[in-house]
C-alpha cells in the first residue's frame, strides 16, 4: 500500500467513497458547518480528521460541535451530543444560521437544477410524487454562506434538470413572489443575502456555479468523461470549464471512512 497521504487508484475505492471525500475537501479549517444526516455527516467528519481539525459541526436538532465516537444515524441521534459544546435546540441553531454564522452547509436533495435550486418535496411538482419535504434544507440553503449538495447522478438524469419541478431550497436564481419574476437570489434576499450553492457533488463529478449562477462541470470523477456527465443531465451542461479529474480518496481518507468514522458499516457498507 502507498503512503497514507497518497491517492488511491481506480478500483481501490467505491463511488460513494469518492463522493464523501470530494465533499470533505470543501471544508476549510475553522469553518462553521451545518450538516444533514448520512453522507454529509461523513464528509464533515473526514474533513475534521484531515485539513479542518477546528471546523465545527452544527446539526439542526440543536447540537453544536459534537465529537461523536460512534457514527450518528440522524441529526437528533444521542451520538451527536457526545462531547458537544452545546446541546440545546432549533431556536439556537437556526438563529445562528440566520445571523450569518454558518460558513458551509452540506445537504442532499432529490432534484437539482441549472441554478442550484433543490427539490426534496415533490418529484414532478405538487401533483407528482411526494417526498419528505424541506426539513431544514430550505432554511440552510437560504441562509448559509456556501452550500454543498451531495446527490446521486449516474443513470438518474431526471435528478439534474433545467428547472426543478418544485423549489424546496433556493439556488442562484429564484422567483420573486408574488410577481413570479425570476431574479438573482441576492436581489430577493437583500441585506439577508449570505451566499448560495458552492458545489454539487455527485457520483460522476464536481459541479460549481459560474458568474451567472449557472452550473458547470468543474472536475470529472475518474472513470467518467465530461460528456458522460452531460448525458446524465437533463439540461445542456457546460463542460467547457472542466479542470480535469477529481482527486481520488487518499488511503488515509479511506481508512478514516471505514475504520474510524463508520467502522460499523452503517453508511459505508
Amino acid at each position: 500500500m502507498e503512503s497514507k497521504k497518497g491517492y488511491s487508484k481506480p478500483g481501490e475505492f467505491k463511488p460513494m467513497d469518492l463522493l464523501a471525500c470530494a465533499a470533505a475537501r470543501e471544508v476549510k479549517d475553522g469553518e462553521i458547518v451545518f450538516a444533514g444526516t448520512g453522507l454529509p455527516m461523513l464528509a464533515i467528519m473526514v474533513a475534521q480528521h484531515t485539513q479542518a481539525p477546528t471546523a465545527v459541526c452544527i446539526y439542526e436538532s440543536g447540537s453544536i460541535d459534537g465529537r461523536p465516537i460512534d457514527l450518528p444515524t440522524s441529526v437528533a441521534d444521542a451520538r451527536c451530543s457526545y462531547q458537544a459544546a452545546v446541546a440545546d435546540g432549533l431556536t439556537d441553531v437556526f438563529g445562528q444560521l440566520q445571523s450569518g454564522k454558518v460558513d458551509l452547509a452540506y445537504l442532499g436533495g432529490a432534484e437539482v437544477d441549472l441554478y442550484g435550486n433543490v427539490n426534496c418535496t415533490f418529484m414532478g411538482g405538487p401533483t407528482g410524487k411526494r417526498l419528505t419535504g424541506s426539513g431544514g434544507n430550505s432554511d440552510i440553503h437560504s441562509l448559509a454562506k456556501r452550500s454543498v449538495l451531495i446527490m446521486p447522478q449516474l443513470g438518474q438524469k431526471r435528478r439534474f434538470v433545467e428547472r426543478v419541478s418544485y423549489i424546496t431550497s433556493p439556488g442562484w436564481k429564484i422567483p420573486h413572489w408574488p410577481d413570479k419574476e425570476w431574479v438573482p437570489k441576492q436581489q430577493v434576499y437583500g441585506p439577508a443575502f449570505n451566499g448560495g450553492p458552492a458545489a454539487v457533488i455527485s457520483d460522476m463529478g464536481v459541479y460549481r456555479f459560474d458568474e451567472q449562477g449557472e452550473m458547470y462541470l468543474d472536475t470529472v470523477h475518474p472513470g467518467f468523461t465530461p460528456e458522460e456527465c452531460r448525458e446524465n443531465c437533463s439540461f445542456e451542461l457546460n463542460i467547457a470549464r472542466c479542470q480535469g479529474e477529481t482527486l481520488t480518496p487518499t488511503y488515509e481518507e479511506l481508512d478514516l471512512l471505514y475504520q474510524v468514522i463508520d467502522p460499523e458499516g452503517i453508511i459505508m457498507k
Partner: protein
Amino acid sequence: MARPKVVSLTEAIGQINDGDMLTFGGFTVWRRPMAAIYELIRQKKRNLHLVEVNGGTHDDMLVGAGCVGIWESSWCGHELYGKFGSNLARRIEKGEILYEDWAHIHILNRLTAGAKGLPFLPTYSAMGCDMLNPENDNLGKAGLRNGSNPHIGKHKYMMYKEPFTDSEIVLVPAANPDWCITHVQMAGNEGTVRVEGLKFSDQEVIKASKHNIIITEQIVPEEYLRREPTRNMLPGYLVDYIVELPWGAHPTGLYGVHEPDGEFIADFFKATRTQEGFDQWAEEWIFGVKDFQEYLNKLGISRLESLRANPALGYSSTMKRGSR
C-alpha cells in the same frame, strides 16, 4: 390551576376532541409520544389539524389511521428507517388530505410566535421557494381562510417591506394548537418537567399550546428536580395532565434511556406502502392490543432491553447497527 392532574393515558387522550389542532414534542424519530399516538388512533379521533415543526413516524401513523384532516409541517419521514412518510405521501398524491408545506424556520416561528403571544414573527428563510408560491396556499385554495376555522388565519404568510433596512421579509402567522403532547424523561409530582439531551423545539411548541399533556418515563419528587432548576424546562402550571408511562416513546428514541427501534420503524414503513398494509399493521400493533401495556408485552422484554442506552454514553453501546 397551578398544578397538573396525574391521570391515565386513556383519560388524558379522552380530553382531545375531533377537529382539535395538535402538535407534539420531539424531533423526527426522537422522543415522540408514541403511546399517545396509539391511543389517539384507538379512540378514533377524526379531522385533527396537525401543526408540527417536523413530522415523523407518529404523524404518518395518525394520517394512515384517518385521524388527520389538515397537516402543516416542514417534513415527514422516518430518518434512515424509511424514505418518507408513505401514508402522508399517498393521501397527498390522491388529494385525500389538506396540507401546507413550510420551511423549518417558518413553522418554528409560527409556534414561537404563538408561545410569545405575538401575531407573527419575521424570517428571511425560504424566500423564492415554492412553500411561499401563492399557488401553493392550499388552505386558501380550499376556501378555509375565510374565518370559519379559528385555527386557520387570513393569510398563509405576508411579504413585508420592513421600514428599518428596507428589506423584504416573510411574516408567518402565530399558531396556537389546542394540545401539545410531549414525552419526557422526568416530571415532578407538582409538574416540573425536565428533558435530558436536546430540547429540540419543545419549549416553543408547549408554550404555544392551550393545553399540555406530558407523558413521562417516571414521576419523581419535585424536590429532586428543583435542586437544579437550570436543568428544568417547564414549571407545572404550564402542564394540564401528566401521564407516567415508561417506554411510552417506543419505537422512537429517548436520549439516555433507549434507542429508536429502527427495525420496528422500517417494518412500519414497508407496511405503509399501501393502505391495506398499514391497516394490517395497525390491526396487529394498535387495535390488536388492549393498551400500551399489552403492546409492550407483545414487543417483549428482550427486544426492549436491546434498545437500552448505556448511561455513560446516552445511547446503546451493544446494539447492532451496520453491516459490519
